[in-house]
């Protein structure tokens, strides 16, 4: 279990060095992305002007306030509360994000599934777990909303955040087949029979 402080973007080798139970903190650029963003990018063929090669994306749709473009708010948006949404709905976008945009890190909550795990192995990437529902804290790790693209999808725009010590985040799916969610899920399912027996369920 090692801790890594990354200045984004990272290389394939850096992504492949990560193992489950390692922790990571990010500095520099982090992209915010959600259901509608990816539906429009990968199903409707919309392009972004952002170069996401080697970068991290977080599954989010933030609370923001339009204050106009200033030195402190170059995107025109001030952040109010930025947190993380459940990743499971966006499973099918992991591979295109990695293949077409060069993304190396996906940050979310609740985990992803087998197709994402394979993409992480094939291309070199990881899934980092952030604590869902801890958005007030997460917001303090974000210095600025630098830019925004596809903003007609607001709040599900493509957000470019500048972050400082964003984490620690837990490596919960790595490029070597390591997956904390499947380990925990299997252990929990192994406990099912004992729990049902304790409840007096006869056919358990």
């Amino acid at each position, binding site marked *: 279990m090692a801790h890594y402080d990354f200045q984004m973007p990272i290389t394939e080798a850096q992504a492949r060095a990560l193992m489950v139970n390692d922790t990571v903190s990010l500095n520099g650029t982090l992209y915010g992305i959600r259901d509608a963003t990816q539906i429009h990018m990968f199903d409707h063929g919309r392009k972004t002007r952002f170069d996401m090669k080697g970068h991290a994306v977080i599954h989010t749709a933030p609370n923001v306030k339009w204050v106009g473009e200033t030195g402190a708010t170059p995107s025109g948006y001030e952040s109010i509360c930025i947190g993380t949404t459940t990743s499971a709905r966006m499973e099918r976008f992991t591979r295109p994000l990695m293949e077409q945009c060069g993304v190396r890190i996906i940050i979310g909550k609740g985990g992803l599934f087998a197709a994402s795990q394979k993409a992480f192995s094939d291309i070199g990437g990881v899934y980092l777990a952030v604590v869902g529902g801890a958005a007030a*804290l997460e917001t303090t790790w974000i210095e600025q909303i630098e830019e925004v693209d596809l903003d007609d999808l607001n709040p599900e725009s493509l957000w470019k955040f500048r972050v400082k010590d964003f984490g620690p985040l837990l490596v919960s799916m790595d490029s070597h087949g390591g997956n904390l969610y499947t380990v925990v899920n299997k252990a*929990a399912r192994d406990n099912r029979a004992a*729990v049902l027996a304790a409840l007096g369920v006869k056919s358990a």
Partner: protein
Amino acid sequence: MKVDLQQIEEASKEIYIRALKILPPDIKEGFKRLDATETNPTGKAILGTMIKNIAVAEANTNLLCQDTGIPIYNVVIGAGVEVDGYALKQAIAKGCARATTEHPIRSSVVHPTTRHNEHTSCGRGVPVINIDFSDKPGELSIEMIPKGSGSEFNSWLKMALPADGIDAIKTFVIDCVLEAGGKTCPPTIVGVGVGGTADLCVHLSKVAATRALGTACADPEGAKLEQELSAVVNKLGVGPQGLGGDSTSFAVHIETAATHITLNPVAVNMQCHSARRSRATVTSAGIAYGF
């Protein structure tokens, strides 16, 4: 008491924002209880982050969670309260929209097929407004629940058979907790509806999921069942965020209703650890805010 609709609009705005920022005391107590007994280091660290987040939200007067949810308003109208029901609903919706645009907060509400967001947290049938009546004299209470999608996404209904008995209910609840894993942002309150019609059963599961910790089902049979399930649910090991540990759920809550001789319905709806709710109580003395 004659209800001042302007007051209702202001209160509806205020309780949406308050709900998003201040976690009720019973949930904070629930966190303390889980934190004291969690044995898994990862689970313990995650609970620590969640507890820290509650303090940061209060210190920065910020939202606890980015998900502003689907707004639900539960209205209880007491005895001798005079109010135009249609105008009451309009005032609540207006307060909900004003919270969204004036704070501002993210409007998480879209049309189901066009996905158009009016950026008011309102739309067809939303905010959800449930109206009930009580015998409390001269009091109108409005409870506000911002129901987040992570927990709402995982909702289930099973029309089990009478021959399957109570075992079917217990098994279904446990299987839903397993199926939810980390997706519902555990530790959760597992809300279970038992009986009724299909729609009533699902509604009861939501009532159960959003009930204060430490309260019991009014039906003694439901209370017995929720105690049994609460005692074992944390033996599954799903843990905070589905990453393992003892703290899968704060509690299992059950609400019951009579059902048809041929039916044995059970529904599960969960509330995430950001188990937000707030309340405005309107009397002739004014508005009191609480939980």
